[in-house]
């Protein structure tokens, strides 16, 4: 490695940093003799930057030159920024060297579009292939599929990558066309579909031939930018639900829009990235994946946007007082999960401990339930005088509203960014 590579590394990291999908989870693979690396199944964060974000992968662009001009992107062709291109060996060497030092879980490679989508996609696939075949690298690889890439090249990439992704970026097609005139839904959904087909075909073959090649075993993910266009949270969550219904889709990421190209007046002039909203969307996403909530329970026509003051689970509970109070000594798992303050862990503990004795408010606390919240929504024998029916919804809402983070309290705004599947 040379000083010159180091300069390029800095430029291309700057260009890649707004892509949030950095998790390395979803695949578990032991080391095979004579190879380097393994994949741990759950994502391992190896560092945290000063913005508090996890660094799991060497997230980098092959090049930040681009022939397109997407309004929300720092690398659009009309921007005057330093540009650089890494060679295939530069990327593979850096990945291996960083990996051997336990800096990273693997590589996350994306690229601006040079010449045409296929030319770019070919080089991306080539890097993954070299890592696997020349360097016998067995760690994690996430490749970004270039919008508009052909089926052959997506298939080639899928043979070597653990995960592939194509970013939706803008939730509705009309807005996408407005902000990214060279892209349309076809160019995004087609590669997504190729990936899905590849994953399913390989799963099918592996049932019959144990050694049939794997295809992107960690599936695919995508990202939506939040706050650059006028879609409401219901639109966003509906699209996320549709995406999750696709067999290979593992994660949808939400990225609060950062006003990088302030000169472009097709974009709203935000002086602050909508972090709170982004956080609420992740919470909603979490509820859909692990708590059995439907998107239209979380955001419906009467409240199409998530409440920024309280989390979406509490908001749902306040809209549905008829469900409560829940008897923790009797209610089934699914119903326990609906109680604000009771999470997956405590719900499981409650179910597994009940046979040894009655659950009291004391045991609930010990099991990690947040009684400050839960007490308005449960009965457990001794306390029942203060449920939401006695106090009223307005009262509960007022006491449980997030306070402005004070100087001394740790800032929990981004805490629920979860990196596991």
């Amino acid at each position, binding site marked *: 490695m040379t*000083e010159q590579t*180091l300069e390029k*590394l*800095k430029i291309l990291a700057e260009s890649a940093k707004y892509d949030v999908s950095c998790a390395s989870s979803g695949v578990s693979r032991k080391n095979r003799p004579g190879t380097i690396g393994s994949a741990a199944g759950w994502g391992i964060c190896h*560092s945290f930057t000063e*913005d508090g974000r996890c660094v799991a992968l060497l997230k980098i662009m092959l090049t930040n030159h681009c022939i397109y001009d997407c309004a929300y992107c720092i690398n659009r062709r009309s921007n005057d920024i330093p540009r650089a291109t890494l060679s295939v060996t530069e990327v593979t060497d850096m990945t291996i060297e*960083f990996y051997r030092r336990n800096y990273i879980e693997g590589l996350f490679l994306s690229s601006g579009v040079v010449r045409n989508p296929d030319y770019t996609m070919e080089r991306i696939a080539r890097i993954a292939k070299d890592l696997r075949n020349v360097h016998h690298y067995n760690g994690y690889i996430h490749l970004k599929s270039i919008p508009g890439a052909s089926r052959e090249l997506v298939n080639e990439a899928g043979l070597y990558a653990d995960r592939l992704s194509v970013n939706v970026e803008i939730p509705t097609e009309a807005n996408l066309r407005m902000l990214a005139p060279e892209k349309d839904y076809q160019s995004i959904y087609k590669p997504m579909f190729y990936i899905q087909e590849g994953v399913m075909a390989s799963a099918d073959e592996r049932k019959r031939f144990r050694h049939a090649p794997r295809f992107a075993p960690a599936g695919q993910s995508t990202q939506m930018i939040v706050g650059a266009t006028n879609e409401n949270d219901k639109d966003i969550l509906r699209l996320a639900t549709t995406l999750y219904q696709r067999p290979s889709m593992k994660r949808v990421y939400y990225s609060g829009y950062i006003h990088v190209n302030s000169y472009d007046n097709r974009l709203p002039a935000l002086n602050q990235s909508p972090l709170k909203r982004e956080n609420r969307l992740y919470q909603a996403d979490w509820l859909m994946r692990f708590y059995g909530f439907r998107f239209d329970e979380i955001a419906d026509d009467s409240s199409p946007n998530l409440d920024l003051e309280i989390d979406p689970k509490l908001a749902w509970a306040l809209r549905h007082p008829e469900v409560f109070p829940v008897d923790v000594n009797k209610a089934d798992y699914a119903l326990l999960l609906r109680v604000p303050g009771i999470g997956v862990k405590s719900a499981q503990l409650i179910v597994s401990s009940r046979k040894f004795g009655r659950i009291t408010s004391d045991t609930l606390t010990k099991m990690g339930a947040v009684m400050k919240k839960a007490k308005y929504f449960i009965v457990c024998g001794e306390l029942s005088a203060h449920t939401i029916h006695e106090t009223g919804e307005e009262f509960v809402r007022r006491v449980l509203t997030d306070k402005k983070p004070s100087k001394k309290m740790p800032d929990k705004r981004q805490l629920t960014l979860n990196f596991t599947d």
Partner: protein
Amino acid sequence: MITFRYDKTLDGLLTAVFDAYSRRTFPDVLLGTDDDVPLFAGEIHTVMSDTEKSTRVWNGLERKASQGFCDMLLHVWLSELPGADELLLKYIVKTFADVAGATMNHADDDVRRIRQIALKVSRERLHVIQFVRFQKAADGIYFAPAAPLYNVLPLTIPHFCDRFADQMWLAYDIRRRYGYFYDMKKAVEVTLENDENLLDGKLDESIMAEDEKLFQQAWKDYTKALTIKERLNPRLQRQNMPARFWKYMPEKNR
């Protein structure tokens, strides 16, 4: 009051369990062999560590409970927290006595404490796996210093053997002054006679591999370039990446 004295090893603790059953007296207090005996100690029994006895106890536990459960006990032992040994002894006796699987009862205080400690230790294990950095020396061996809060290095070795199978490395606990050397076949525990030069956790430039410094610099510059200045949140950084690990991390150093 009944007091057992033992050599503060895991073997010793398991032998103490064995002795308790054969003597039919269960200790209220555990003391180290070198600890002062309090004035009114009552009955005192000194445990002689015996691997045969300790193995029998451990095998008995494995038969009685799941692998995950035994791992949990091992985690608690490695916490080295004061009182953890007494808690373990009590809990192991409970496990042997128990018929209905009451060790799963999370409303029980001992069960809860065991779980809490095990959780803390396994978090620290994960921290080591996350934040330990390998530095390449001129002879090709990678040096990985750590100073974890609990004695978790042994719990991380299988992970590192699997991941860094084709390079030689030395993972070293600087606080407890022992480590593991991996020779591309297996990892063996080592204590080094002259480890003074390793204790600051940084390879001296004179024995670094040629590119080592450049890669450390590259990693540091890279993580800096990744930071989104519009979203700075150092408190969150500290919360996710405890400052006690920073000393040996190039991105926070030099």
